Protein backbone atom coordinates (compact mmCIF):
# COMPACT_ATOMS: atom_id res chain seq x y z
CA UNK A 1 0.00 0.00 0.00
CA UNK A 2 2.84 2.40 0.82
CA UNK A 3 4.35 1.83 -2.60
CA UNK A 4 1.15 2.85 -4.31
CA UNK A 5 0.90 5.97 -2.16
CA UNK A 6 4.50 6.97 -2.94
CA UNK A 7 3.92 6.66 -6.68
CA UNK A 8 0.81 8.79 -6.38
CA UNK A 9 2.70 11.56 -4.56
CA UNK A 10 5.53 11.54 -7.10
CA UNK A 11 3.09 11.74 -9.98
CA UNK A 12 1.38 14.60 -8.37
CA UNK A 13 4.20 16.97 -7.41
CA UNK A 14 4.87 17.20 -11.10
CA UNK A 15 1.69 19.18 -11.57
CA UNK A 16 1.90 22.04 -9.12
CA UNK A 17 -0.55 24.40 -10.75
CA UNK A 18 -3.15 21.67 -10.75
CA UNK A 19 -2.48 21.16 -7.08
CA UNK A 20 -3.12 24.79 -6.22
CA UNK A 21 -6.30 24.87 -8.26
CA UNK A 22 -7.54 21.68 -6.65
CA UNK A 23 -6.85 23.01 -3.18
CA UNK A 24 -8.76 26.16 -4.00
CA UNK A 25 -11.68 24.06 -5.20
CA UNK A 26 -11.61 22.07 -1.94
CA UNK A 27 -11.65 25.28 0.06
CA UNK A 28 -14.47 26.53 -2.13
CA UNK A 29 -16.57 23.44 -1.38
CA UNK A 30 -15.97 23.86 2.32
CA UNK A 31 -16.89 27.54 2.10
CA UNK A 32 -20.11 26.61 0.31
CA UNK A 33 -20.98 24.11 3.04
CA UNK A 34 -20.34 26.73 5.70
CA UNK A 35 -22.37 29.39 3.89
CA UNK A 36 -25.17 26.86 3.93
CA UNK A 37 -24.91 26.45 7.69
CA UNK A 38 -24.67 30.24 8.11
CA UNK A 39 -27.83 30.69 6.06
CA UNK A 40 -29.81 28.10 7.96
CA UNK A 41 -28.84 29.45 11.35
CA UNK A 42 -29.60 33.02 10.34
CA UNK A 43 -33.20 31.87 10.41
CA UNK A 44 -33.44 29.41 13.25
CA UNK A 45 -31.72 28.36 16.44
CA UNK A 46 -31.68 24.61 15.97
CA UNK A 47 -32.50 21.73 13.67
CA UNK A 48 -34.27 19.09 15.77
CA UNK A 49 -32.06 20.05 18.66
CA UNK A 50 -28.81 20.25 16.67
CA UNK A 51 -27.26 23.72 16.98
CA UNK A 52 -24.90 25.48 14.59
CA UNK A 53 -21.85 24.15 16.39
CA UNK A 54 -23.17 20.63 15.87
CA UNK A 55 -23.75 21.41 12.20
CA UNK A 56 -20.16 22.67 11.88
CA UNK A 57 -19.06 19.28 13.07
CA UNK A 58 -21.44 17.59 10.62
CA UNK A 59 -20.00 19.66 7.78
CA UNK A 60 -16.50 18.73 8.93
CA UNK A 61 -17.33 15.04 9.17
CA UNK A 62 -18.96 15.11 5.74
CA UNK A 63 -15.78 16.64 4.29
CA UNK A 64 -13.61 14.09 6.04
CA UNK A 65 -15.69 11.18 4.78
CA UNK A 66 -16.12 12.57 1.26
CA UNK A 67 -12.37 13.27 1.13
CA UNK A 68 -11.59 9.81 2.39
CA UNK A 69 -13.94 8.27 -0.16
CA UNK A 70 -12.37 10.19 -3.02
CA UNK A 71 -8.92 9.39 -1.71
CA UNK A 72 -9.15 5.65 -1.39
CA UNK A 73 -12.50 4.23 -2.47
CA UNK A 74 -13.61 6.00 -5.63
CA UNK A 75 -10.38 5.55 -7.62
CA UNK A 76 -10.34 1.85 -6.84
CA UNK A 77 -13.99 1.29 -7.62
CA UNK A 78 -13.72 3.19 -10.89
CA UNK A 79 -10.79 1.03 -11.87
CA UNK A 80 -12.70 -2.13 -11.00
CA UNK A 81 -15.58 -1.03 -13.24
CA UNK A 82 -13.12 -0.44 -16.07
CA UNK A 83 -11.42 -3.75 -15.48
CA UNK A 84 -14.68 -5.63 -15.57
CA UNK A 85 -15.75 -3.88 -18.76
CA UNK A 86 -12.42 -4.36 -20.52
CA UNK A 87 -11.80 -7.83 -19.20
CA UNK A 88 -8.53 -6.73 -17.61
CA UNK A 89 -9.70 -7.99 -14.23
CA UNK A 90 -7.95 -11.17 -15.34
CA UNK A 91 -4.62 -9.62 -14.41
CA UNK A 92 -5.86 -9.07 -10.89
CA UNK A 93 -7.26 -12.56 -10.56
CA UNK A 94 -3.95 -14.09 -11.65
CA UNK A 95 -2.06 -12.49 -8.75
CA UNK A 96 -1.53 -14.56 -5.61
CA UNK A 97 -3.21 -11.88 -3.48
CA UNK A 98 -6.90 -11.93 -2.56
CA UNK A 99 -8.71 -10.19 -5.44
CA UNK A 100 -11.02 -8.10 -3.30
CA UNK A 101 -8.06 -6.83 -1.24
CA UNK A 102 -6.00 -5.98 -4.31
CA UNK A 103 -8.71 -4.09 -6.16
CA UNK A 104 -9.48 -2.13 -3.01
CA UNK A 105 -5.99 -0.77 -2.34
CA UNK A 106 -4.46 -0.32 -5.78
CA UNK A 107 -5.30 3.32 -6.24
CA UNK A 108 -4.70 6.13 -3.80
CA UNK A 109 -5.24 9.80 -4.53
CA UNK A 110 -3.09 11.55 -1.96
CA UNK A 111 -4.06 15.16 -2.59
CA UNK A 112 -7.57 14.48 -1.43
CA UNK A 113 -6.19 14.51 2.07
CA UNK A 114 -6.74 18.26 1.83
CA UNK A 115 -10.47 17.61 2.17
CA UNK A 116 -9.88 15.38 5.16
CA UNK A 117 -7.71 18.01 6.86
CA UNK A 118 -10.13 20.86 6.13
CA UNK A 119 -12.95 18.73 7.47
CA UNK A 120 -11.03 17.90 10.61
CA UNK A 121 -10.32 21.59 11.23
CA UNK A 122 -13.96 22.58 10.89
CA UNK A 123 -15.12 19.66 13.01
CA UNK A 124 -12.63 20.60 15.72
CA UNK A 125 -13.80 24.20 15.53
CA UNK A 126 -17.42 23.18 16.02
CA UNK A 127 -16.56 20.95 18.94
CA UNK A 128 -14.54 23.62 20.68
CA UNK A 129 -17.26 26.21 20.10
CA UNK A 130 -19.72 23.94 21.81
CA UNK A 131 -17.70 22.56 24.68
CA UNK A 132 -15.00 25.16 25.09
CA UNK A 133 -12.38 22.48 24.57
CA UNK A 134 -11.94 19.14 22.85
CA UNK A 135 -12.64 16.29 25.24
CA UNK A 136 -10.23 13.45 24.52
CA UNK A 137 -12.88 10.89 25.20
CA UNK A 138 -15.06 12.44 22.50
CA UNK A 139 -12.18 12.40 20.01
CA UNK A 140 -11.48 8.74 20.68
CA UNK A 141 -15.16 7.85 20.38
CA UNK A 142 -15.38 9.92 17.23
CA UNK A 143 -12.50 8.10 15.54
CA UNK A 144 -13.99 4.78 16.61
CA UNK A 145 -17.41 5.62 15.11
CA UNK A 146 -15.83 7.13 12.01
CA UNK A 147 -13.96 3.90 11.40
CA UNK A 148 -17.19 1.91 11.58
CA UNK A 149 -18.83 4.43 9.26
CA UNK A 150 -16.00 4.22 6.77
CA UNK A 151 -16.12 0.43 6.68
CA UNK A 152 -19.84 0.73 5.90
CA UNK A 153 -19.11 3.21 3.11
CA UNK A 154 -16.54 0.87 1.60
CA UNK A 155 -19.04 -2.00 1.71
CA UNK A 156 -21.74 0.09 0.01
CA UNK A 157 -19.32 0.99 -2.76
CA UNK A 158 -18.15 -2.58 -3.15
CA UNK A 159 -21.74 -3.72 -3.54
CA UNK A 160 -22.40 -1.03 -6.14
CA UNK A 161 -19.23 -1.98 -8.02
CA UNK A 162 -20.16 -5.68 -7.83
CA UNK A 163 -23.35 -4.90 -9.75
CA UNK A 164 -21.05 -4.28 -12.70
CA UNK A 165 -20.59 -8.04 -13.06
CA UNK A 166 -24.21 -8.23 -14.16
CA UNK A 167 -24.83 -4.78 -15.69
CA UNK A 168 -21.52 -4.20 -17.42
CA UNK A 169 -22.30 -0.72 -18.73
CA UNK A 170 -23.10 1.02 -15.47
CA UNK A 171 -20.20 3.46 -15.45
CA UNK A 172 -22.47 6.04 -13.87
CA UNK A 173 -23.25 3.95 -10.81
CA UNK A 174 -21.02 6.34 -8.88
CA UNK A 175 -23.72 8.98 -9.27
CA UNK A 176 -26.19 6.77 -7.43
CA UNK A 177 -23.97 6.87 -4.39
CA UNK A 178 -23.38 10.62 -4.40
CA UNK A 179 -27.05 11.39 -5.03
CA UNK A 180 -28.19 9.35 -2.06
CA UNK A 181 -25.23 10.55 0.01
CA UNK A 182 -26.56 14.10 -0.38
CA UNK A 183 -29.08 13.24 2.26
CA UNK A 184 -26.26 12.58 4.73
CA UNK A 185 -25.12 16.21 4.60
CA UNK A 186 -27.47 16.88 7.46
CA UNK A 187 -28.09 14.91 10.66
CA UNK A 188 -30.77 12.32 10.01
CA UNK A 189 -32.88 13.68 12.85
CA UNK A 190 -34.30 16.28 10.47
CA UNK A 191 -36.06 13.61 8.45
CA UNK A 192 -39.42 11.96 9.27
CA UNK A 193 -39.23 8.72 11.20
CA UNK A 194 -39.66 6.38 8.28
CA UNK A 195 -36.75 8.06 6.45
CA UNK A 196 -34.60 7.85 9.58
CA UNK A 197 -35.41 4.14 9.79
CA UNK A 198 -34.47 3.69 6.12
CA UNK A 199 -31.16 5.45 6.61
CA UNK A 200 -30.36 3.32 9.62
CA UNK A 201 -31.32 -0.16 8.53
CA UNK A 202 -31.70 -0.18 4.75
CA UNK A 203 -29.08 2.28 3.51
CA UNK A 204 -26.95 2.84 6.62
CA UNK A 205 -26.08 6.48 6.00
CA UNK A 206 -26.76 7.32 9.63
CA UNK A 207 -23.63 5.52 10.78
CA UNK A 208 -21.45 7.30 8.25
CA UNK A 209 -21.98 10.92 9.20
CA UNK A 210 -24.57 11.46 11.89
CA UNK A 211 -23.26 9.00 14.48
CA UNK A 212 -19.61 10.07 14.29
CA UNK A 213 -20.65 13.73 14.41
CA UNK A 214 -22.76 13.11 17.47
CA UNK A 215 -19.87 11.27 19.09
CA UNK A 216 -17.55 14.20 18.51
CA UNK A 217 -19.82 16.89 19.89
CA UNK A 218 -21.64 15.05 22.61
CA UNK A 219 -19.31 12.22 23.46
CA UNK A 220 -21.02 9.68 25.65
CA UNK A 221 -23.91 12.08 26.23
CA UNK A 222 -25.22 11.79 22.73
CA UNK A 223 -23.93 8.36 21.86
CA UNK A 224 -25.05 5.49 24.06
CA UNK A 225 -23.21 2.14 24.13
CA UNK A 226 -26.20 0.79 22.24
CA UNK A 227 -25.39 3.12 19.33
CA UNK A 228 -21.76 2.06 19.31
CA UNK A 229 -22.77 -1.58 19.23
CA UNK A 230 -25.28 -0.95 16.45
CA UNK A 231 -22.69 0.85 14.32
CA UNK A 232 -20.10 -1.87 14.63
CA UNK A 233 -22.56 -4.72 14.19
CA UNK A 234 -23.72 -3.01 10.99
CA UNK A 235 -20.11 -2.55 9.86
CA UNK A 236 -19.24 -6.21 10.41
CA UNK A 237 -22.51 -7.41 8.87
CA UNK A 238 -22.01 -5.27 5.79
CA UNK A 239 -18.42 -6.39 5.45
CA UNK A 240 -19.50 -10.02 5.41
CA UNK A 241 -22.44 -9.32 3.10
CA UNK A 242 -20.46 -7.28 0.58
CA UNK A 243 -17.60 -9.79 0.55
CA UNK A 244 -20.05 -12.60 -0.15
CA UNK A 245 -21.75 -10.59 -2.88
CA UNK A 246 -18.38 -9.83 -4.46
CA UNK A 247 -17.47 -13.51 -4.58
CA UNK A 248 -20.80 -14.30 -6.28
CA UNK A 249 -20.13 -11.55 -8.81
CA UNK A 250 -16.61 -12.85 -9.39
CA UNK A 251 -17.98 -16.27 -10.28
CA UNK A 252 -20.05 -14.60 -12.96
CA UNK A 253 -17.04 -12.90 -14.47
CA UNK A 254 -16.13 -14.49 -17.75
CA UNK A 255 -12.87 -12.69 -18.47
CA UNK A 256 -11.33 -11.34 -21.63
CA UNK A 257 -10.88 -14.67 -23.37
CA UNK A 258 -13.37 -17.54 -23.02
Amino acid at each position, binding site marked *: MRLFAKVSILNFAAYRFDMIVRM*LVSIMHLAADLIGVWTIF*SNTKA*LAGWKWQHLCVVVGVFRIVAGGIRMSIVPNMRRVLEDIMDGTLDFVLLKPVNAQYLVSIREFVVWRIVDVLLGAIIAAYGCIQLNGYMPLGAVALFVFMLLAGFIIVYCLWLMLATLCFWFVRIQNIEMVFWNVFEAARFPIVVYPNWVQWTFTFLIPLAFIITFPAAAFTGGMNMIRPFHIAMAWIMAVAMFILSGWFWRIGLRRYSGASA
Partner: protein
Amino acid sequence: MRQLARSFTAFLKTGIGVMLQYRGEIVLWSVWGLVNPLVLYAVFKAGAQSNPDQQIAGLSIGEVAAYFFTIMIIGHLSAAWDTHEMGWYVRTGRMSPLLLRPIMPIWKSLADNLSYKVCTLVFVGPMWIFFALLIRPTFDTAAWQVALGLVATLLAIVLSYTFNYAVALIAFWATKLDAVGEIYFGLVMFLGGRFAPLPAMPGKIRWIAEALPFQYMAYFPTWIFMGKVHTRSEVFLGLAAQLAWIAVSILVLRLMWAAAVKRYTAVSG
Protein backbone atom coordinates in the same frame (compact mmCIF):
# COMPACT_ATOMS: atom_id res chain seq x y z
CA MET B 1 -33.30 31.00 -41.18
CA ARG B 2 -35.26 28.10 -42.66
CA GLN B 3 -31.97 26.23 -42.95
CA LEU B 4 -31.44 26.72 -39.24
CA ALA B 5 -34.95 25.58 -38.39
CA ARG B 6 -34.49 22.39 -40.41
CA SER B 7 -31.11 21.68 -38.87
CA PHE B 8 -32.41 22.36 -35.39
CA THR B 9 -35.29 19.95 -35.89
CA ALA B 10 -32.82 17.33 -37.02
CA PHE B 11 -30.67 17.99 -33.96
CA LEU B 12 -33.74 17.57 -31.77
CA LYS B 13 -34.65 14.26 -33.35
CA THR B 14 -31.17 12.82 -32.99
CA GLY B 15 -30.90 14.34 -29.53
CA ILE B 16 -34.02 12.56 -28.37
CA GLY B 17 -32.82 9.37 -30.00
CA VAL B 18 -29.55 9.54 -28.10
CA MET B 19 -31.28 10.36 -24.82
CA LEU B 20 -33.55 7.37 -25.24
CA GLN B 21 -30.50 5.15 -25.74
CA TYR B 22 -29.03 6.48 -22.53
CA ARG B 23 -32.28 6.37 -20.62
CA GLY B 24 -30.65 4.76 -17.60
CA GLU B 25 -28.07 7.49 -17.37
CA ILE B 26 -30.45 10.40 -17.79
CA VAL B 27 -32.61 9.03 -15.00
CA LEU B 28 -29.56 9.00 -12.75
CA TRP B 29 -28.68 12.56 -13.75
CA SER B 30 -32.13 13.80 -12.83
CA VAL B 31 -32.10 12.16 -9.40
CA TRP B 32 -30.00 14.88 -7.81
CA GLY B 33 -32.57 17.47 -8.83
CA LEU B 34 -35.16 15.46 -6.91
CA VAL B 35 -33.15 14.57 -3.82
CA ASN B 36 -31.58 17.94 -3.13
CA PRO B 37 -34.80 20.00 -2.74
CA LEU B 38 -36.31 17.28 -0.58
CA VAL B 39 -33.30 17.27 1.73
CA LEU B 40 -33.44 21.06 1.98
CA TYR B 41 -37.18 20.93 2.63
CA ALA B 42 -36.58 18.58 5.55
CA VAL B 43 -33.86 20.88 6.88
CA PHE B 44 -35.87 24.07 6.66
CA LYS B 45 -38.94 22.35 8.04
CA ALA B 46 -36.89 21.27 11.06
CA GLY B 47 -35.67 24.84 11.34
CA ALA B 48 -39.22 26.15 11.28
CA GLN B 49 -40.28 23.66 13.94
CA SER B 50 -37.56 25.01 16.23
CA ASN B 51 -38.96 28.51 15.92
CA PRO B 52 -41.75 29.58 18.29
CA ASP B 53 -44.03 30.66 15.45
CA GLN B 54 -43.34 27.49 13.45
CA GLN B 55 -42.19 29.66 10.56
CA ILE B 56 -38.86 30.23 8.93
CA ALA B 57 -37.98 33.40 7.00
CA GLY B 58 -41.65 34.31 7.03
CA LEU B 59 -42.75 31.03 5.48
CA SER B 60 -44.99 28.46 7.10
CA ILE B 61 -44.08 24.79 6.79
CA GLY B 62 -46.59 24.33 3.99
CA GLU B 63 -45.05 27.26 2.18
CA VAL B 64 -41.55 25.86 2.66
CA ALA B 65 -42.84 22.70 1.02
CA ALA B 66 -44.39 24.77 -1.77
CA TYR B 67 -41.11 26.61 -2.33
CA PHE B 68 -38.92 23.56 -2.68
CA PHE B 69 -41.54 21.65 -4.63
CA THR B 70 -41.92 24.43 -7.18
CA ILE B 71 -38.23 25.13 -7.45
CA MET B 72 -37.64 21.41 -7.94
CA ILE B 73 -39.76 21.56 -11.08
CA ILE B 74 -38.55 24.91 -12.40
CA GLY B 75 -34.97 24.02 -11.53
CA HIS B 76 -35.22 20.85 -13.58
CA LEU B 77 -36.78 22.68 -16.52
CA SER B 78 -34.16 25.43 -16.46
CA ALA B 79 -31.14 23.14 -16.07
CA ALA B 80 -28.08 23.96 -18.17
CA TRP B 81 -24.73 22.26 -18.07
CA ASP B 82 -22.52 23.70 -20.80
CA THR B 83 -20.30 25.20 -18.08
CA HIS B 84 -19.42 21.64 -17.14
CA GLU B 85 -18.82 20.34 -20.64
CA MET B 86 -17.29 23.17 -22.65
CA GLY B 87 -13.87 22.79 -21.04
CA TRP B 88 -13.79 19.13 -22.00
CA TYR B 89 -14.83 19.84 -25.57
CA VAL B 90 -12.15 22.47 -25.99
CA ARG B 91 -9.36 20.51 -24.29
CA THR B 92 -9.95 17.25 -26.12
CA GLY B 93 -10.26 18.93 -29.48
CA ARG B 94 -13.82 17.79 -29.91
CA MET B 95 -14.73 21.37 -30.64
CA SER B 96 -12.86 21.25 -33.96
CA PRO B 97 -15.32 19.15 -36.00
CA LEU B 98 -18.18 21.16 -34.50
CA LEU B 99 -16.62 24.41 -35.68
CA LEU B 100 -16.36 23.05 -39.21
CA ARG B 101 -20.13 22.84 -39.44
CA PRO B 102 -21.95 25.83 -40.97
CA ILE B 103 -24.10 25.98 -37.85
CA MET B 104 -22.92 27.23 -34.48
CA PRO B 105 -22.39 24.43 -31.94
CA ILE B 106 -24.76 26.18 -29.56
CA TRP B 107 -27.75 24.92 -31.52
CA LYS B 108 -26.77 21.28 -31.14
CA SER B 109 -26.11 21.88 -27.47
CA LEU B 110 -29.50 23.56 -27.05
CA ALA B 111 -31.18 20.64 -28.81
CA ASP B 112 -29.48 18.17 -26.45
CA ASN B 113 -30.57 20.26 -23.50
CA LEU B 114 -34.20 20.24 -24.62
CA SER B 115 -34.10 16.55 -25.55
CA TYR B 116 -32.91 15.70 -22.07
CA LYS B 117 -35.76 17.64 -20.53
CA VAL B 118 -38.37 16.10 -22.80
CA CYS B 119 -37.17 12.56 -22.22
CA THR B 120 -36.77 12.83 -18.46
CA LEU B 121 -40.29 14.17 -18.11
CA VAL B 122 -41.57 10.61 -18.25
CA PHE B 123 -39.64 9.78 -15.11
CA VAL B 124 -39.61 13.01 -13.10
CA GLY B 125 -43.24 13.91 -13.83
CA PRO B 126 -44.70 11.08 -11.72
CA MET B 127 -41.99 11.69 -9.10
CA TRP B 128 -43.12 15.30 -8.79
CA ILE B 129 -46.71 14.20 -8.26
CA PHE B 130 -45.58 11.67 -5.68
CA PHE B 131 -43.54 14.27 -3.80
CA ALA B 132 -46.42 16.73 -3.84
CA LEU B 133 -48.58 14.13 -2.12
CA LEU B 134 -45.73 13.42 0.27
CA ILE B 135 -44.79 16.88 1.47
CA ARG B 136 -48.13 18.64 0.90
CA PRO B 137 -47.19 22.11 -0.32
CA THR B 138 -49.68 24.91 0.28
CA PHE B 139 -50.30 27.55 -2.34
CA ASP B 140 -52.10 30.86 -2.11
CA THR B 141 -52.05 31.92 -5.72
CA ALA B 142 -54.37 33.89 -7.97
CA ALA B 143 -55.05 32.87 -11.56
CA TRP B 144 -53.21 35.85 -13.03
CA GLN B 145 -50.16 34.94 -10.97
CA VAL B 146 -50.20 31.43 -12.40
CA ALA B 147 -50.44 32.79 -15.93
CA LEU B 148 -47.61 35.28 -15.49
CA GLY B 149 -45.67 32.63 -13.62
CA LEU B 150 -45.70 30.48 -16.73
CA VAL B 151 -44.32 33.38 -18.76
CA ALA B 152 -41.63 33.92 -16.16
CA THR B 153 -40.78 30.23 -16.25
CA LEU B 154 -40.30 30.32 -20.00
CA LEU B 155 -38.04 33.36 -19.75
CA ALA B 156 -36.18 31.70 -16.89
CA ILE B 157 -35.42 28.69 -19.06
CA VAL B 158 -34.10 30.88 -21.86
CA LEU B 159 -32.06 33.05 -19.50
CA SER B 160 -30.64 30.07 -17.70
CA TYR B 161 -29.42 28.51 -20.93
CA THR B 162 -27.99 31.63 -22.55
CA PHE B 163 -26.21 32.92 -19.46
CA ASN B 164 -24.79 29.49 -18.74
CA TYR B 165 -23.48 29.21 -22.29
CA ALA B 166 -21.92 32.65 -22.16
CA VAL B 167 -20.09 31.76 -18.96
CA ALA B 168 -19.12 28.39 -20.39
CA LEU B 169 -17.22 30.14 -23.18
CA ILE B 170 -14.60 31.11 -20.59
CA ALA B 171 -13.33 27.59 -21.20
CA PHE B 172 -11.78 28.73 -24.45
CA TRP B 173 -9.34 30.83 -22.46
CA ALA B 174 -9.02 28.98 -19.19
CA THR B 175 -8.65 25.46 -20.49
CA LYS B 176 -7.42 23.98 -17.24
CA LEU B 177 -10.29 25.36 -15.20
CA ASP B 178 -12.82 22.61 -14.81
CA ALA B 179 -13.81 24.55 -11.74
CA VAL B 180 -15.86 26.94 -13.88
CA GLY B 181 -18.77 24.53 -13.82
CA GLU B 182 -18.52 24.01 -10.08
CA ILE B 183 -18.27 27.71 -9.29
CA TYR B 184 -21.21 28.50 -11.55
CA PHE B 185 -23.23 25.75 -9.93
CA GLY B 186 -22.44 27.15 -6.47
CA LEU B 187 -23.53 30.62 -7.55
CA VAL B 188 -26.81 29.27 -8.90
CA MET B 189 -27.41 27.39 -5.66
CA PHE B 190 -26.90 30.30 -3.29
CA LEU B 191 -27.64 33.37 -5.37
CA GLY B 192 -30.39 31.70 -7.35
CA GLY B 193 -32.50 30.62 -4.42
CA ARG B 194 -31.91 26.89 -4.90
CA PHE B 195 -30.43 26.39 -1.44
CA ALA B 196 -32.82 28.64 0.41
CA PRO B 197 -35.48 31.21 -0.49
CA LEU B 198 -33.68 34.50 -1.08
CA PRO B 199 -35.40 36.22 1.87
CA ALA B 200 -33.72 33.60 4.08
CA MET B 201 -30.23 34.37 2.82
CA PRO B 202 -27.99 36.50 5.05
CA GLY B 203 -28.14 40.20 4.20
CA LYS B 204 -24.80 40.52 2.48
CA ILE B 205 -25.54 37.61 0.15
CA ARG B 206 -29.02 38.90 -0.63
CA TRP B 207 -27.52 42.21 -1.63
CA ILE B 208 -25.15 40.50 -4.09
CA ALA B 209 -27.99 38.33 -5.39
CA GLU B 210 -30.13 41.37 -6.21
CA ALA B 211 -27.61 42.55 -8.76
CA LEU B 212 -27.22 39.23 -10.56
CA PRO B 213 -29.35 37.25 -12.99
CA PHE B 214 -29.36 34.00 -11.01
CA GLN B 215 -32.48 34.96 -9.08
CA TYR B 216 -34.42 35.07 -12.34
CA MET B 217 -33.50 31.55 -13.37
CA ALA B 218 -35.71 29.72 -10.89
CA TYR B 219 -36.41 31.84 -7.81
CA PHE B 220 -38.47 34.55 -9.50
CA PRO B 221 -40.98 32.22 -11.22
CA THR B 222 -41.21 30.15 -8.04
CA TRP B 223 -41.98 33.21 -5.99
CA ILE B 224 -44.73 34.20 -8.42
CA PHE B 225 -46.26 30.73 -8.33
CA MET B 226 -46.36 30.89 -4.57
CA GLY B 227 -48.36 34.08 -4.77
CA LYS B 228 -45.62 36.02 -3.04
CA VAL B 229 -45.25 38.65 -5.75
CA HIS B 230 -48.31 40.65 -4.89
CA THR B 231 -48.70 43.34 -7.51
CA ARG B 232 -48.84 43.09 -11.26
CA SER B 233 -46.27 45.86 -11.56
CA GLU B 234 -43.75 43.88 -9.51
CA VAL B 235 -44.24 40.89 -11.78
CA PHE B 236 -43.82 42.96 -14.93
CA LEU B 237 -40.73 44.59 -13.51
CA GLY B 238 -39.29 41.15 -12.92
CA LEU B 239 -40.23 39.95 -16.40
CA ALA B 240 -38.54 43.03 -17.84
CA ALA B 241 -35.43 42.25 -15.80
CA GLN B 242 -35.45 38.72 -17.19
CA LEU B 243 -35.67 40.02 -20.74
CA ALA B 244 -32.89 42.50 -20.06
CA TRP B 245 -30.60 39.78 -18.71
CA ILE B 246 -31.42 37.55 -21.67
CA ALA B 247 -30.43 40.38 -24.00
CA VAL B 248 -27.19 40.93 -22.09
CA SER B 249 -26.43 37.21 -22.16
CA ILE B 250 -26.98 36.91 -25.89
CA LEU B 251 -24.86 39.98 -26.56
CA VAL B 252 -22.01 38.74 -24.38
CA LEU B 253 -22.37 35.33 -25.94
CA ARG B 254 -22.00 36.63 -29.48
CA LEU B 255 -19.00 38.77 -28.63
CA MET B 256 -17.28 36.03 -26.70
CA TRP B 257 -18.02 33.43 -29.36
CA ALA B 258 -16.33 35.49 -32.07
CA ALA B 259 -13.28 35.99 -29.86
CA ALA B 260 -13.32 32.36 -28.73
CA VAL B 261 -13.31 30.92 -32.23
CA LYS B 262 -10.48 33.23 -33.24
CA ARG B 263 -8.46 32.14 -30.25
CA TYR B 264 -9.24 28.46 -30.73
CA THR B 265 -8.13 28.40 -34.34
CA ALA B 266 -5.02 30.40 -33.43
CA VAL B 267 -4.07 28.03 -30.63
CA SER B 268 -4.96 24.68 -32.14
CA GLY B 269 -4.21 25.57 -35.76
